[in-house]
């Protein structure tokens, strides 16, 4: 039994590795809600406003990057048979530096504090360097390569490029560079972040997770085999075209035409996901599935806003169109999918670790382990889903009529994130309760066997 336990536990990192990231992530969304409540419409005037930049990074770094760090370190051993080295220490360091870095960065944006920006760069730069190096070592040692491993690899490469571009932009906060370059750099930073890092990560994970857990047909082979890597290569070429254009060497049309090809790739992924989900064999209602569907519809909406840009700019104004486009990708697509995934990952890991530990230490049936839905009841997840829908609706209204809807949006964001946090915390509390029950029973069992042994020894002594 002990041999078995150690072997299987070798594969999974300690539960605190992912949990620390999952538990702080919604708090950053809560902060984003607070900013909206405080600054109101100023937060949604233009993509260049410092409050909007603060909001965006609270979501992308505070929530998305956090959850990704925890989830990737957890999932690599399962999917690729290769663990992140020193996962406990890596997770502690990355979590601390990332959390501090986001707070510093957001403060630097809000209060124009150059020294804080320097510290934010140091903190975030170190957090991502440690994370990328640790994951790269794990990926290097991978025993089996599958499309999800490739998806994670290219997503991590795209993350690195995003971070480097972000650091250059943050540096320009302290050492100013020309506006033209800032514009190109910002577009590239966003492109690599949204299309490269988040887009490819979700795609890679979807190929594995959607058919497995939602019991859908498989994605078509051409998509699984070629789409992720082609899109990564396409991102690289797009980067080159953008740089060449920024030095006025070629017309911007080249980069735009290329982006259209790429956008069609992402669109085909979103449409295919909705299509396989429609044909799923497991027909039970499922909150995570609903979050995924919202995510895919948002990606399609983003495509429509981007492709018919001039039309929408005429109808709602260019600034509003750009905010909506960013919102569709970051909130509608990425936040929805990752929020939904948390409702599977966290209760499953809780169950998995406890059941494993209980069987290894005590054998069958000594402690009753709650099932996933007892850790995190559907009712709670559904309530938060409704708040998330409210957030998305109010976001669209707030972009169109910021003076009326910015603060209601802030309130909805606060409520939705608090509810998510509450849901996760109460699952973790339940986890800890059962975990200490296992420890108590296991100690009692050890004491009993020690007492038994000394009694036996005593009996042997008397008989001798």
């Amino acid at each position, binding site marked *: 039994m002990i*041999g*078995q*336990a150690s*072997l*299987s536990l070798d*594969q999974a990192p300690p539960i605190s590795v992912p949990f620390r990231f999952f538990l702080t992530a919604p708090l950053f969304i809560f902060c984003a809600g607070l900013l909206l409540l405080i600054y109101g419409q100023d937060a949604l005037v233009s993509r260049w406003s410092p409050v909007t930049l603060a909001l965006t990074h609270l979501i992308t770094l505070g929530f998305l990057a956090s959850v990704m760090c925890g989830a990737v370190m957890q999932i690599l051993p*399962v*999917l690729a*048979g290769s663990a992140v080295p020193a996962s406990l220490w890596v997770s502690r360091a990355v979590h601390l530096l990332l959390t501090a870095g986001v707070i510093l960065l957001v403060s630097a944006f809000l209060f124009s504090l150059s020294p804080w920006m320097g510290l934010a760069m140091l903190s975030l730069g170190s957090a991502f360097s440690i994370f990328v190096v640790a994951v790269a070592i794990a990926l290097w040692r991978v*025993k*089996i390569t*599958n499309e999800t491993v490739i998806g994670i690899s290219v997503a991590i490469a795209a993350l690195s490029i995003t971070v480097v571009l972000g650091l250059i932009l943050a540096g320009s906060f302290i050492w100013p560079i020309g506006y033209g370059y800032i514009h190109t750099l910002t577009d590239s930073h966003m492109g690599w972040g949204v299309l490269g890092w988040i887009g490819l990560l979700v795609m890679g994970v979807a190929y*594995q997770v959607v058919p*497995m*857990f939602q*019991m859908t047909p498989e994605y078509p082979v051409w998509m699984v085999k070629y789409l992720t890597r082609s899109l990564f290569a396409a991102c690289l070429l797009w980067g080159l075209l953008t740089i060449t254009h920024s030095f006025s060497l070629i017309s911007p049309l080249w980069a735009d035409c290329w982006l259209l090809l790429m956008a069609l790739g992402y669109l085909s992924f979103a449409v295919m996901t909705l299509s396989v989900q429609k044909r799923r*064999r*497991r*027909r*039970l209602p499922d909150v995570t599935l609903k979050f995924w569907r919202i995510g895919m519809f948002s990606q399609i909406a983003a495509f429509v806003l981007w492709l018919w840009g001039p039309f929408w700019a005429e109808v709602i104004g260019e600034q509003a169109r750009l905010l909506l486009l960013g919102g569709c990708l970051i909130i509608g697509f990425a936040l929805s999918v990752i929020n939904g995934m948390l409702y*599977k990952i966290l209760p*499953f890991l809780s*169950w*998995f670790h406890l*059941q*494993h530990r209980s*069987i290894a230490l005590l054998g*069958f*049936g000594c402690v009753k382990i709650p*099932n*996933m*839905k*007892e850790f995190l009841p559907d009712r709670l997840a559904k309530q938060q889903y409704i708040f998330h829908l409210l957030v998305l609706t109010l976001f669209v209204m707030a972009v169109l009529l910021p003076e009326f809807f910015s603060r209601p949006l802030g309130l909805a964001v606060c409520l939705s994130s608090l509810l998510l946090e509450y849901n996760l915390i109460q699952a973790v509390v339940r986890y800890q309760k059962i975990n200490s029950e296992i420890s108590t029973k296991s100690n009692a069992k050890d004491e009993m066997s020690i007492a038994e042994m000394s009694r036996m020894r005593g009996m042997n002594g008397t008989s001798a």
Partner: protein
Amino acid sequence: MANMTDITTTMSADHRACDEVFARAEELIADNGWVEGAEKFKQFHDAMEHHFTMEETVLFPAFEARTGMTMGPTEVMRGEHVQMRALFAEMAESVEKQDSEQYIGLSETLLMFMQQHNSKEEQMLYRMTDQALGQSVEDVLERMAAVGQ
């Protein structure tokens, strides 16, 4: 090339067959169709036990004998079978009590666990076994087909 005479294809197909019955049982029980649901659950439980028995009595020992790895992947898979059997026992109890909420919570948990387990077998263990066994694959497949008949 993969064909029905290798372990990866044969055993993966058996996983899919078990999945089908799993989904059907869950659907029936969610609608409180207990008579048919209980029958489907039993069919699923039997199919899984049959699959585990084929692995534990024929496939894993053959892999271990050929590779000498007795504390490697097969031991991890055996451990996971133990975890899944604990879930089957609880599911059987909820069928007995006709507690659909309990059953759905358990089947959700099992689905997550079973799919990861299957994926590890299909992408690692079965492929390794096909390679390790070489010519004797057919013999092992025949012995597995004879299990429980």
